[in-house]
């Protein structure tokens, strides 16, 4: 079974702090994603990585950066946390070579981040 783990389930940070959210997958997937989930807005893509050291902006990248130094690990960084970044953060992974073709992404359990 694919396993995607996230470093924290719950996190409370203060405004202005630098925040690191870590994600690790154990299936040798090339693609990794960071989303945030907010009520009434669904899942919105923050950043996407299709290979080590490669990244692509998603729909809402402002205020975030990412790092992918190893294939299995994808980090989301909030350079200076703000209250509007209080949200559920979800990491996912996928492979472009999966068969049958379905574009399925595998999700971690999520990190509930509160910025006060």
């Amino acid at each position: 079974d694919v396993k995607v783990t996230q470093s924290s389930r719950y996190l409370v940070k203060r405004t202005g702090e630098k925040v690191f959210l870590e994600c690790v997958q154990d299936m040798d997937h090339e693609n990794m994603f960071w989303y945030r989930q907010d009520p009434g807005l669904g899942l919105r893509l923050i950043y996407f990585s299709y290979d080590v050291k490669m990244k692509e902006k998603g729909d809402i990248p402002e205020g975030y950066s990412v790092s992918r130094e190893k294939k299995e690990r994808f980090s989301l960084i909030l350079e200076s946390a703000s209250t509007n970044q209080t949200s559920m953060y979800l990491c996912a992974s996928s492979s472009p070579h999966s068969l049958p073709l379905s574009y399925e992404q595998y999700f971690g359990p999520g990190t509930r981040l509160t910025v006060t």
Partner: protein
Amino acid sequence: DQQVKQNSPSLSVQEGRISILNCDYTNSMFDYFLWYKKYPAEGPTFLISISSIKDKNEDGRFTVFLNKSAKHLSLHIVPSQPGDSAVYFCARNFGNEKLTFGTGTRLTIIP
């Protein structure tokens, strides 16, 4: 415009009956559509998918229908069970590894 829209934020269904969750989309090309289920405090889990070259895909109690002329996708759950109570997201792929998600529908199964 790559949107998928779920116009019903919530749905309540009696246990044993059929649950029908709906999703509309725009600008159809060669796509894949997926349905995910999410419990509180957990990540979404994949349920079922369908290619835009098909009209229907079935997996146990779950069937997804694709009406290309109406640009409409639906998920049928028969029979509905209490464990089906969750938030359901439809998602769309354009062949570029990314998914675009709808806003979700909260399904409540009434015992």
